[in-house]
């Protein structure tokens, strides 16, 4: 019975993490190229609304996903264009866009509020889904969940094992040097912002077509964008660690539901809010772990060294500092 509960718990964690995982991977790619797309929260909401509305009107889920990805890409492209080519602050543009996209989603999505629409259907993977425990946790979901898991490995492989990934990292770290070697940093950053935006859009769509099917105000995706931004930092701008962060966040959310039953004397609100301060605490630990004084203090203490290494991670050197050739 305990194993059954564990399996169900972890299966819920894997399924529930999908939207935030997609958004986190998208933002990791964007930031790895040196651009901060702060519009994530609004972008996720607008793409969630568009996905549901398009799927509802056309009765075609694929069109819903495609439309959401395009919305995410367009918003990301706007941030990139204004920052890279028009010299505007990417933080300011991203922030304004997140507010605008959120309000636009509520306004345009009003006619679709609380309607029952299409949902992604489950697809068990034959053979693999029969593996005890692991089969239930990882291979008993739908194509979207599998895609998100595949993307973790793909993103890592792409960034660290391909020439294109090397160029992506180079424009994030040293755009001037990249420019000197014949790479146009701005074009590349724009391209990866759009790629990241596509994933963010898919994250939004996975909210309204799978994780929290339907549209309404509040949709339930509110705040996810900010968490995704924090997870990128938590992950040290590495897709694998960012993915672990996404699963950890989902775990904390699901755990809150179980804890309400296990610890009835603790107010239910504590478990509901817990994932957010825990995430802030982790960011604080990461910040401290990167300080020189901390590494000096740790010295040769092996277990402490491992702990600090796990939590350390440096941002791309040129993150948020666009390269202007002139």
């Amino acid at each position: 019975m305990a194993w059954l509960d564990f399996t169900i718990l972890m299966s819920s964690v894997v399924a529930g993490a999908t939207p935030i995982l997609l958004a986190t991977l998208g933002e990791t790619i964007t930031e790895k190229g040196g651009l901060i797309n702060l519009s994530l929260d609004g972008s996720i909401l607008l793409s969630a609304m568009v996905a549901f509305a398009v799927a509802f009107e056309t009765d075609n889920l694929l069109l819903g996903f495609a439309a959401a990805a395009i919305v995410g890409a367009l918003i990301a492209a706007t941030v990139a264009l204004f920052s890279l080519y028009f010299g505007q602050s990417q933080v300011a543009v991203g922030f304004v866009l997140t507010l605008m996209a959120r309000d636009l989603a509520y306004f345009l999505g009003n006619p679709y509020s609380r309607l029952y629409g299409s949902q992604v259907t489950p697809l068990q993977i034959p053979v693999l889904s029969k593996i005890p425990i692991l089969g239930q946790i990882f291979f008993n979901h739908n194509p979207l969940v599998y895609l998100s898991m595949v993307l973790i490995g793909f993103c890592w492989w792409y960034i660290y094992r391909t020439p294109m990934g090397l160029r992506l990292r180079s424009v994030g770290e040293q755009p001037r040097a990249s420019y000197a070697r014949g790479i146009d940093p701005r074009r590349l950053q724009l391209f990866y912002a759009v790629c990241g935006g596509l994933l963010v859009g898919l994250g939004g769509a996975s909210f309204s077509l799978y994780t929290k099917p339907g549209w309404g105000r509040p949709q339930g995706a509110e705040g996810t964008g900010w968490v995704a931004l924090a997870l990128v930092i938590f992950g040290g701008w590495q897709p694998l660690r960012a993915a672990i962060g996404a699963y950890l966040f989902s775990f904390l959310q699901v755990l809150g539901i179980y804890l309400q039953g296990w610890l009835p004397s603790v107010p239910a609100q504590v478990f509901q809010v817990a994932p957010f301060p825990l995430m802030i605490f982790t960011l604080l630990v990461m910040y401290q772990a990167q300080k020189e004084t901390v590494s000096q203090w740790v010295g040769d203490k092996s277990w402490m060294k491992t702990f600090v290494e796990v939590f350390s991670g440096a941002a791309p050197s040129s993150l948020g500092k666009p390269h202007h050739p002139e």
Partner: protein
Amino acid sequence: MFKKMGLALSIFFMLVFMGFLCLRPGFGAEKPFQFGLLLVGPYNDHGWSQAHFEAGEYVQKKLPGAKMIYIDKVNPADRQGITIPQLVDDMVEKGIKLIIANSDDMKDGTREAAKMHPDIHFLHISGDDVLTGKASGNLSNLMGRMEYGKMMAGFAAAMTTKTGKIGYLGPLINEETRRLVASSYLGAKYAWEKVLKKDPKELTFKVTWIGFWFNIPGVTADPTKVAQNFFNTGYDVLISGIDTTEAVVVAKQKKQEGKMVWAIPYDYIGACEGASDVCLGVPYFNWGPGYLEFIQASIAGKWKSNWIWMGPDWKNINDPDTSTVGFKPGPALSSSAKKALDSFISDLGTKKVNLFEGPLYYQDGSIFLKDGEIATDKKIWYMEQLLKGMLGQSSAK
């Protein structure tokens, strides 16, 4: 001559002008009676707020002179820093004579606003200020006896469950929500033990609270995840106590995955629409008759500060003109269960069955009702805990 013609023309044009004025719609007619509606959620939430919004429309239809002005999403997440007295001031400036506040959350604000505007009538839904003596003379309370609707929901759930595990998606914990969950449990228990003649030990009834009437990300537990968790852990019927549709949405999702599950939404008569394969029915509020009564009293100058708890019209609990609480059976309810439910409703109406009759115990084992004791309205209204036999938190402390 020209002078006389000019005078005649002037009189003619003046008469034509006045004629136009008189023909203008509304001229000379009595000013419409404007009433305001403060909704905690969106007007189209397919739940609590939509039920109130449609009651406002009902009043406009029944009273041609009445005009509704509504403000929706009046909650701390959507309108940070906006208070009820501020919204009331704005409404009063627009000429509104009666204001309806539709959430328990608005209790303090409505009381304060009522004291600030003694000439305006206030109707606070689900509150008890009149009962506790805190209300000023221009403030009344109205609530529907949803306990009966919830008993029917619990009954339908127990008649349907195959696993004997019924879940309840609870909002926040207070007296109102406790008595509604307890009513659902009592309905389920009755069906399980008296109709199906099954072992009481084989029935599990559990409530999980999300923390508010609807999902506020980062503040409440995610009702979608709570509902998924219920279904993933063997609960096959989920009764919703929240204002939005997550229970039904997730039940549909699980049905697609091949699970035999059902859900019972709440509040709004149309909540089953589009979910015929999982919806067992919906206990709903029909606020129209109650609104109409108070607004007519206000117009006629016969307003009295009252605490009214309106029940179903037992002749026809789904009569839109007379019944404040109803239960609309859903397409997924089997014909045998529906037949038993009809009989149960009839027994409730004739008082043959009274589920709030002792002995009943609180969750901690203390006595709620002694053997043979029938609960008073006040005792039900101020339930202190969940009942013995139910799983879940009784208190937010």
